[in-house]
């Protein structure tokens, strides 16, 4: 038992470090690790992952310096749609076949890999003050609210269904659709992920899809990893990790598709 807990804690630690370093949230690593390495049913893995997302969010928040903040007004408005979507997604997870959930997760992982690749290619070449300042400029007007709210609701459904934080949808929606500067969109998304996960986690717990003996060591590992990852973030070049991450994500997507096919 202790060995299993240590293994779960280790998996959580890695997920927390990667989540904090790469801004992806631990869920994208936790669900495949729990299903592929520990052969957990996917609903239980998603439930544990939601706890992991909240732990990542709490871990990063507890050590980060309050710097360039999120647009909280925007976040609260979008959360009306996202949390409603998350409730719907969690409810749906209780009635659809586990294979469909595995396929949905594989789709999320693929989308995250493509989004990470696109982000690497569109990064500004020079880290000049103008470039960085542009990421956090304050003179923006948020547009296309109906589209933003609709897509946020979809992000919430996917979060409830797959245990991810949904950042790979929220950031592009805020930046490309709603005209929010990228730095602010990212900070806002990071602020939102924990709230979105909290909307789903109670339903999973009530359904018995969260096993404390699994979720607790994982959460301890994730929280510790998130704290460690936040401290490493200033020293580690995330770009070199992102290339390895993209490859890993493609492998994970294929494994999850195979798991869904096998049943």
């Amino acid at each position, binding site marked *: *038992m202790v060995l299993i807990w240590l293994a779960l804690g280790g998996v959580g630690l890695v997920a927390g470090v990667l989540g904090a370093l790469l801004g992806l949230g631990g869920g994208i690593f936790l669900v495949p690790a729990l299903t592929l390495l520990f052969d957990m049913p996917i609903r239980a893995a998603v439930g544990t992952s939601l706890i992991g997302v909240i732990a990542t969010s709490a871990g990063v928040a507890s050590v980060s310096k309050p710097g360039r903040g999120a647009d909280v007004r925007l976040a609260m408005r979008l959360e009306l749609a996202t949390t409603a979507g998350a409730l719907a997604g969690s409810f749906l997870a209780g009635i659809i076949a586990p294979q469909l959930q595995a396929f949905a997760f594989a789709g999320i992982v693929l989308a995250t890999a493509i989004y990470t690749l696109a982000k690497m290619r569109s990064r500004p070449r020079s880290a000049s003050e103008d470039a960085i300042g542009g990421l956090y400029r*304050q003179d923006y007007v948020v547009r296309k609210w109906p589209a933003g709210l609709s897509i946020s609701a979809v992000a919430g459904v996917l979060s409830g269904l797959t245990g991810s934080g949904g950042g790979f949808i929220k950031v592009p929606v805020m930046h490309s659709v709603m005209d929010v500067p990228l730095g602010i969109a990212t900070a806002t998304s990071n602020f939102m992920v924990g*709230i979105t996960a*909290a909307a789903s986690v109670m339903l999973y*717990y009530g359904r018995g899809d*969260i096993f404390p003996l699994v979720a607790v060591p994982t959460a301890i590992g994730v929280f510790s990893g998130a704290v460690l990852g936040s401290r490493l973030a200033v020293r580690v070049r995330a770009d070199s990790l992102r290339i390895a991450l993209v490859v890993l994500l493609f492998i994970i997507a294929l494994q999850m598709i195979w798991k869904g096919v096998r049943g």
Partner: protein
Amino acid sequence: MLDDLIRQRTGAASATEGQRVARTVQRVARAFAVPALVLMVLGLVLFLTVHPGAGGLPGEAVVNVRRLASRTLLTPRGVMSLGLLLLALIPMVTVLLIVSDRLRHRQWTEAAIGLGVVSILMIGILLSRGE
């Protein structure tokens, strides 16, 4: 009126407001995460002591812990669940504090929106009890 509620200009999000909220988030995370982690670790230790097959403290300590657990109904699963619950409450408490901040600054629309988010989170809790 709904249009006005949703379309209110948010582009002028002040850096000061963002930093104030970030400090609130940090305080809540620290205040809840530490007891949550303590309870979780305590739950794991309790589990090991009341289930001798899983390994744990030897001899008399096991007997004493079992006696304590049976008297106080603090089962290992219960303690762990309490820790998980504290962790899961961090986002809701954060939103409640933001609502309180909005009310203090007489930003009624923002407070109403925050309360809307809290309501949806509460619906999740109520639905979980029905499962």
